């Protein structure tokens, strides 16, 4: 009974999160990075003050984990073309120089620590590979004007 009630609370909290906080973030990639940033590196637990005050810390944690898994699967299902567009949008909104952004993402591969816990290894491997290709395309577009790439 208690488990059912908690599950219902988690569902309500997840809906609340999708509607309020995540509703204001248009790109899946941005939502993914945001949700990963709400997770403590040491404990693996997610924190969100607003959500915890409306529900409870546990329920908020599970709701954030649910939404994180959801966005991860959306990114895995996204074609590379979509990932490239999302990455360019994210880069433009990051206030860093595009060249620096590409260098840091290539060097540090920050997306590797952004996957949800217990993600199946092959899905994660596939997403990392797609990010790598998308980043290579973004980098190439920064170096060459689009028409010269089309002609290559």
């Amino acid at each position, binding site marked *: 009974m208690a488990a059912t009630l908690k599950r219902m609370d988690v569902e309500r909290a997840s809906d609340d999160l999708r509607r309020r906080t995540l509703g204001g973030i248009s790109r899946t990639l941005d939502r993914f990075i945001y949700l990963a940033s709400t*997770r403590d590196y040491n*404990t*693996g*637990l*997610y924190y969100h003050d607003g959500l915890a005050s409306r529900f409870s810390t546990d329920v908020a*944690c*599970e709701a*954030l*984990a*649910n939404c994180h*898994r959801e966005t991860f699967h959306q990114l*895995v*299902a996204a*074609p*590379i*073309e979509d990932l490239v567009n999302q990455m360019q949008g994210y880069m433009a909104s990051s206030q860093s120089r595009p060249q620096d952004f590409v260098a840091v993402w290539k060097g540090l591969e920050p997306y590797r620590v952004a996957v949800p*816990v*217990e993600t*199946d*290894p*092959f*899905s994660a*491997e*596939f997403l990392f*590979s*797609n990010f*790598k*290709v998308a980043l*290579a*395309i973004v980098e*190439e577009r920064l170096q*060459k004007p689009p028409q010269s*790439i*089309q002609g*290559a």
Partner: protein
Amino acid sequence: MILLVLFVALGAGLLVLMYLFVQSPEPRAEGGAQALVQARNALSSLQTGLLPAELVERVFAKDDLRFVASSAGVKVQEVFLRERKRLALSWIAQVRTQVLSLKEFHSGQSRLYARLDVRTEVAVALSFASLLILCRALQATFYVRGPYAAPRMVGFAIIAAAKVCTVFEHSLGFLPRTSAEVLRRDSPGPHVAA
């Protein structure tokens, strides 16, 4: 005298047979739970991580290939093809590993838990054999001709692996997935939030 020798030889033969029977390796109950959890994990890994149609379709989707070919330079196209080949090889190697794990469980432990009739046993053995051959053939094809060379073989492999998984669902049916997950979570690992 001849009769005596015959009886002694017969008795000795029977003793040898009895000794061999006692010494023959039998599936042991010790470690059975561990093997069962490993089999359930292999099954879960196949069903949720390696065989879902949407994931496999994405890996072998040609729309990504078309996009990269039309909008990126040669170097990026090479990176893309190298990555997809690596993924395809990794995918089929993981499928093969999990299928081998199920096969080992089946030959070593499953008789302790589930009674399979001879026809099912033969069908399962044939399914394993054909699936493992198919995995090897796909590995060779991906290696030599790239990830997009054998879409129909990929489809056959998925169907064959799904069939094996269904048979195992029945033979492992008495151990619900949740129990196996609880056992798996009890083992040391990263802290799970949800």
